[in-house]
């Protein structure tokens, strides 16, 4: 944890600095209490955040003497791969939604995700495709017909 704490503390400190100086560019009313300025409150938060960030860094150094070992963000490379696939799918979903419509976008998302989540030995394309289709139909009926959310129709008109 401590390695990440130091990195995070430094990032937060830089962020607090940017927040402080950027808020300083907001318009100021001369001769009036500072609390009236738009930048007053963000600057206050930036100062407190900077203090806490420094405390986090110091704490990480103190803990260096106490404990060893760090957390792993990903268990192994396959979980990292899976994470990246998920991330890509999440990012392209809004585009799929806009250009292909809700039903198609959801089917593509669900089927690729389910396929990726199963291990190689368990992948039965026909079965997974069928289940993806069922899930998509249920989701489509719930959101499109029952809750009636106005989705973009997309190129395929469904």
């Amino acid at each position, binding site marked *: *944890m401590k390695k*990440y*704490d130091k990195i*995070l503390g430094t990032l*937060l400190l830089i962020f607090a600095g940017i*927040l402080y100086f*950027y*808020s300083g560019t*907001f*318009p100021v009313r001369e001769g009036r*209490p*500072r*609390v*009236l*300025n*738009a930048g007053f*409150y*963000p600057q206050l*938060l930036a100062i*407190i*955040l900077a203090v*806490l*960030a420094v*405390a*986090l860094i*110091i*704490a990480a150094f*103190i*803990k260096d003497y106490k404990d060893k070992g760090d*957390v792993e*963000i*990903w*268990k192994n490379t396959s*979980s*990292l791969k*899976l*994470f990246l696939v*998920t*991330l890509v799918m*999440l*990012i392209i*979903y*809004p585009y799929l*939604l*806009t250009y292909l419509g809700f039903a198609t976008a*959801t089917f593509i*998302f*669900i089927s690729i*995700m*389910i396929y990726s*989540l*199963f291990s190689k030995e368990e992948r039965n394309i026909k079965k997974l495709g069928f*289940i993806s289709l069922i*899930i998509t139909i249920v*989701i489509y009926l719930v*959101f499109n017909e029952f*809750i009636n*959310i*106005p*989705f973009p129709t997309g190129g395929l008109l469904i």
Partner: protein
Amino acid sequence: MELFSMDIYLEGLKYFSNPMMFLFSGFGVLIGIIFGSLPGLTATMTIAVFISFTFGIDATLSFAFLLGLYTGAVYGGSVAAILINIPGTPNAIATGLDGYPLCQKGKAGQAIGIATVSSAIGGILSVFVLAIAAPMVASVALKFSAQEYVGITLIGLSIIAIISTGSMLKGLIGGLLGLVIGVIGMDPITNFPRFLFGQPELIEGVSSIPVMIGLYGISEMLMQISEEEHGVVIDQAVKDIIPSFSDIKRLLPTITRSSIIGVIIGAIPAAGGSIAALVAYGQEKRFSKHPELLGTGIIDGIAAPEAANNASTGGALMPMLTLGIPGDPMTAVLMGGLIMQGLRPGPLLFKQQMPFVSSIFLSLLLSVIFMLVFGLFGAKYFARLITVKKQYLIPSIMIFCLVGSYAINNSTFDIWILLISGLIGFFLRKVGFSPAPIVLGLILGPIFESNLRRALILADGQWSTFVTRPISLFFLILTLILLFGPFIWNLIKGDKSTDII
């Protein structure tokens, strides 16, 4: 309006002439139980994911549904705890201590039955306490002004920083990050647009719902993807659920005692159901005639935490409704739902919207009754759901999150807010942060800023205004005690083992 007359409770009844109230409540409880009993889907996440679909629905109906979700999900967590020893929600951690051993003895049905009845009794008691005490608290809180609200907000943020998982320092940083996100949008005093980055959608501020769905929903799913898979198998039929009258009669003192513990602990801002359940279980060890049997699978050990965690639901709603300070992450999300409906929780809600408030009490009561019925007659079906493969669950939940964010304004902009929050939430969780303080900071941020600056403007920029008013001073001292008390106490005792960092 007179806050202490019977009429205030009757005013909410008129909404129930609409049969949709029953439908929404029952539907909410059903979905809540289903989601709560699926391991890995917490009650907070369930409410966060579904809240956006209540947008545009009448406030009383949407809260009938949301409170149903809340009650159902808190209860549903116990089903998974009993059957597979994985608490469906943190509130059910203590339930597994005796529930799972009882299940191993082949008495899963009995365990679920006792959990259901205890939950219902705890839940009903808490509704009554809430309905009686909340208007009183609200009438006191009506006298508070901006200075006091600054103090109350600080107390809320401090407690959630202390209680949430991870170190207190990280809890505080999380709360502060939430406050910083709350700055985005128009300055409440000068109307100057702050940190819009060229996005006109941000003028009203970052909408808190997609942030909450991202922090609880998407980030939780990403967490599960980054970890190993665990398939679950249940190899026993859940039967004989309806408990015997003699069992209930024998457990009544335990249930009553634990319910009272639950209500009180729930009402402490940020303490919440999981702590209430653990404390009640601990008390059961002290009061029980056979404390040595606890943990081996006796029904007393299920009744105590279940009564307490459901009793905490009413308690947790109290500070949220009366002061605008949520009692736990779940009520923080519910508060987001109120704000989305254009309602501002706090004492004024009781003064101006009392019929709505009393409909909340009645909806909560109704949802407990639905929970009892569904639990006793549907548990064997819910039990089967636990075996649904995560490979199917994760993509479906993600679609719920994506669609939920989209549905608030029918715009993909909120999907981007969702994804950014989900990714940030994932990395923050990995390095030991809890999402709860961030959500609380975000929700309390705009109210905190307005009160802080209003108080300072009235006092000509003098910070001393916060210490010259006695109640405000009391709140500030309480905040300091909360933050530094344990640390100083250990320093005096010479014990350095517990650290605040």
